[in-house]
């Protein structure tokens, strides 16, 4: 109890804040890098998600991961106590543990674990980890109270926490819905694991980003009105 209190008091007072415009530019940069990733894969490696999912997914998360880490480490909690490189280091740990969690979720929902599809599942969970867990680890570190407050109790405070929470849940829910067309007998190549799930996750993430941006703007207006 004591520890928790100690932790909490400085955290709320000292924290980097970000405006809606800043959040928008963060989203824009990460989105741009995702697009660049797709472009590189298509034009340099001449494959796409359908023809070679595991290579595509690997390249995607390798391209996306650094930029997410670089940006979100700037927005870390307690910048004085926690150096930039420590934030980068812990987000690498976060990447791996997040991939494990995502892989567990996917497999328990029925992702195949045969030898053929194992690399796909692994790279898909790394990409999901970049979308969901990595920003949070870069910002929160191992602070359980923050994780619990934001992800379990769904009580985010401040724009950064909106930026972490809503796109992450958006990606998860999008991936969940993305699995729906898989059992249909349309015999389309994108019905393979994990193509449509990936599209669903990316779509859900984008929807989450839009929702979080609009929430930020709405809440700011609300606050301003309150102050006035």
């Amino acid at each position: 109890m004591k520890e928790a209190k100690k932790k909490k008091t400085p955290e709320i007072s000292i924290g980097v804040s970000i405006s809606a415009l800043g959040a928008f530019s963060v989203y824009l940069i990460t989105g741009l890098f995702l697009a660049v990733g797709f472009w590189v894969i298509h034009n340099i490696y001449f494959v796409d998600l359908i023809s070679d999912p595991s290579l595509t997914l690997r390249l995607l998360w390798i391209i996306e991961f650094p930029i997410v880490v670089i940006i979100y480490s700037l927005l870390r909690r307690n910048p004085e106590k926690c150096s930039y490189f420590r934030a980068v280091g812990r987000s690498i740990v976060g990447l791996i543990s997040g991939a494990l969690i995502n892989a567990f979720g996917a497999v328990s929902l029925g992702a195949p674990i045969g030898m053929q599809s194992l690399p796909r599942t692994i790279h898909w969970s790394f990409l999901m980890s970049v979308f969901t867990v990595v920003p949070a680890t870069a910002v929160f570190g191992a602070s359980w109270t923050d994780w619990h407050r934001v992800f379990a109790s769904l009580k985010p405070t401040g724009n950064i926490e909106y930026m972490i929470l809503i796109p992450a849940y958006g990606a998860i829910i999008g991936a969940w819905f993305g699995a729906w067309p898989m059992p249909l007998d349309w015999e389309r190549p994108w019905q393979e694991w994990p193509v449509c799930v990936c599209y669903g996750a990316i779509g859900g993430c984008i929807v989450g980003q839009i929702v979080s941006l609009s929430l930020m703007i709405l809440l700011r207006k609300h606050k301003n009105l309150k102050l006035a």
Partner: protein
Amino acid sequence: MTTAMTCTRLTIFTVAGIFLQIIGLSIFVFGFFPVKPTLSGVSGSESYRDPFCDSSPISNESELHHPEKLKLLYQVIDGLPAEFVLGKDGKPPWKVWKESMPYTQSLLANGDAIGYHAKAAPPTVTMPRLKAMVSGAIGGFLDVAFNFNTQALLDDNLLGQFFRIGWKMVMLGDETWLKLFPGLFMRHDGVSSFFVKDTVQVDRNVSRHLPDELNSDDWNLLILHYLGLDHVGHTGGRNSPLMPAKLKEMDDIVRTMHLRALMDRSHDQGQTLLIIVSDHGMTENGNHGGSSYEETDSLMLFIGLNSNISDYASATNNVAFQVDLAPTLALLFGVPIPKNNVGVLVPGTLSSLRDFEQLRALELNSWQLLRLMQAQIQNSSFPGFSCNCFLDGTCEGLELDISECSGDKEKQLICLFRNAAVLHGIWKSKKSTESSSAMEDFSRALDAYNTFLKTASEWLASKTTEKPVLLLGLGVSAMLISCFICATVFLSLFKDVYHEPKDQVCSLSFLLNLEEMFIFALLLILVISMGSSSMVEEEHYIWHFMVSTFYLLLLFKTSKSFNFSEGMNILRDFKFGSIFSLLISGRLLRGWHQGGVNWTYLPDISKWLQQAGSGYVKWIQLISNFLVIVLGLYTLFRTESNRKSVRILAFGFSACGFLTLLHAGRYQDEMSTDFGATVTVKVIYYLLSISAIGASLVLPWSALNKDKSFLAEVGDCLYSIGSAYILCWCLLQLLLQQPINSGPILLLLLQILAILCLSSNDLQVNEWVEIAALYYMGMAGHFALGNSNTLATIDVAGAFIGISSHSTILSGILMFMITYASPMLFLLSLVMYIGAKLRNHSHSTISTHPETSLGQILKLKLGFPCLVPLCINSILLTAYTVVLLLMRNHLFVWSVFSPKYLYVCATTLCTYIGVFIVAATVTYACSVTTFLKSNRTRHNNS
């Protein structure tokens, strides 16, 4: 509260709703799947007699003349639309098709052949079509469903009639024939229709024997069934580039056979009739099964009938029904027409016969149809008919003249037959005397017969396929009302339970929280997905996905309430452990059988184990057998009261477990034909039923613990009974199921124990959500045991374990038990669930409601466990009935939607039985305990 439900009212409403549902369901089923009355037995010499004359002289002759050495070459080209050969709407076929079959087209142009567009009845798939062609009957859907233990065609049919007159038959091609007619063929070479991608080899395997067979002279009937064209259609559709080559190949075979037939005739070696038919057509994409024109447009081509047809148009522009083939061939070859035939003689095939023979053939056909009509019209609406009255002119109330036929259909048919018979009689009587007007009389009689036959055939066929709208509407509305009643009862109970105690209202921060939303969403998704045929085929994906999602939601909820500062106490550990074991066992269950239709070839655990060797399967069977016994006994002894009766029960179960192990270890390899195996299994059946029934009857009476509250007492007792039920059911399933399924049985038991552990550790989920989750888990387990929505996955072999003599009822019950192992297991676990809840309840609020009445307790504790499964099932059943009604013209109505409907009906039955057992057990235990308690207090007072 005005809408407070008493226990009695609740029960009355529920039972009324269920009864309404049963009535509605049975009305709907009999409306949608008409069961036509059929005649049993085979046609014999009586078919040459007047149906109204029992005493007429017996003539074993059809009085038709048949050539001495008549042979029949019967070529079936699977899936060939008649349009390819005969064209459509009077136009010749497309150039590409016409040019691919030059020889057949030349035969048609020369008048050597006559072709018909033979309309096939849905379902346009091979087996029912073959049955229709050889028996002339249109089978109902339920005929297919109820013939689970044999595929052989037991009805009267053409091949059986040929066999009876000593014909030698040879079959080359689709092995469906061998399944339909086991033992009839002198020589056969079956090919499988399983490899749809194979379009070449499958036909080569048929044609390789053709030269030898054509040269040998020992057969009377040669059946060739080519599957290649159907496979070409399935892979590439009507316009597949492979199609012309395949048509050419078929044309070459026609030429080979026809040339051989011509040679035989020129050498005076008898006459050969060549018939080319297709069982069904195909759509543009090459599919079939439904009732569109493209699929039902099958071919019927007679070559070598000596019919005098001059022009191409009259040789190709004919229409018939597929069932007409049976009576035509029967009459052409002089065998009795199969009993349940609804077809008529194809006009134009008899022109080689003499006049009196033609009329005689029509008369025989009419008599056969009249016999069938007599069976359909039960009441004696054949007034005034007596033996030979047409000839003698002694018919009561009937004059010997021709009348216009009107009135209702039955009367009209009788009248038409009378006209024909009278005209036939006139022609017969005049034949010897006057020859000038004979020709006119003959054609009048012919026309009259043809009119009667056509009308009668249509009437009989419509009897088997028509759907009475009134019945369907009545059934659906009854089901809707009962669904509404169930939902209302559930809602009122919901209001009662969650709004009376004040403390629980506060804890419900939302009216509906995440899990409750999810339960409703799952129901909605299921109902929506039922409308898509591929989702019906792959239904197991939905169940597994949704149930796993539910586990993840539980995980989320638990971690939400998880507090780091409290530390990892043991209770939380149990909770997380249970949820993780649920997730892992759920995943294993999902991977055990790759069910469904489209992806059955994907690897799964069962295939992997079977490939690894039977030794592994045996080990898994032994281990899960052992673990099931251990787990079951553990739960049995978990109640604190270590009574004597429980110990006896445990002994009984251990004995059963030992016997099951023995049976698994010793007899399962030899497929239990052994006498010892049957005895062992019977002993297990008796022991298990005695233990289960004994447990539920005796345990409530056994010694009462003085310092325990009433609820704790009942709870303990119910917990023991529930665990006895579960253990009993698991042991039974271990015995009956295939060895590979013993793993899933263990996993299902683990799941039940895990979710009971969760619910007793305060899951913070409403009671009804837990019960709904149990129901859903049961359905997911149903698919994990290898079941699907096709009838093919029903384990027929297991249905004969321990049965010494053939009994359809007993093996039907066993089959039901095997198929519904998992839903029943989860329903039975509700007894244990109620027991655990009662115990928990008594721990927390030991004396808050000291004098709650029996009815109140039953309502609160038994209400949800009974109502939730009934409600879910009622909603699913009603929704699926509506879906089936909407899909009645869908392509896959017979292949996908109707089997699924049978499964839905069986699930309904399973739910009724399960809920009845739960309700009866709990009510009995509660009343016995109340009785004992009151007895004791009286005793103490006095």
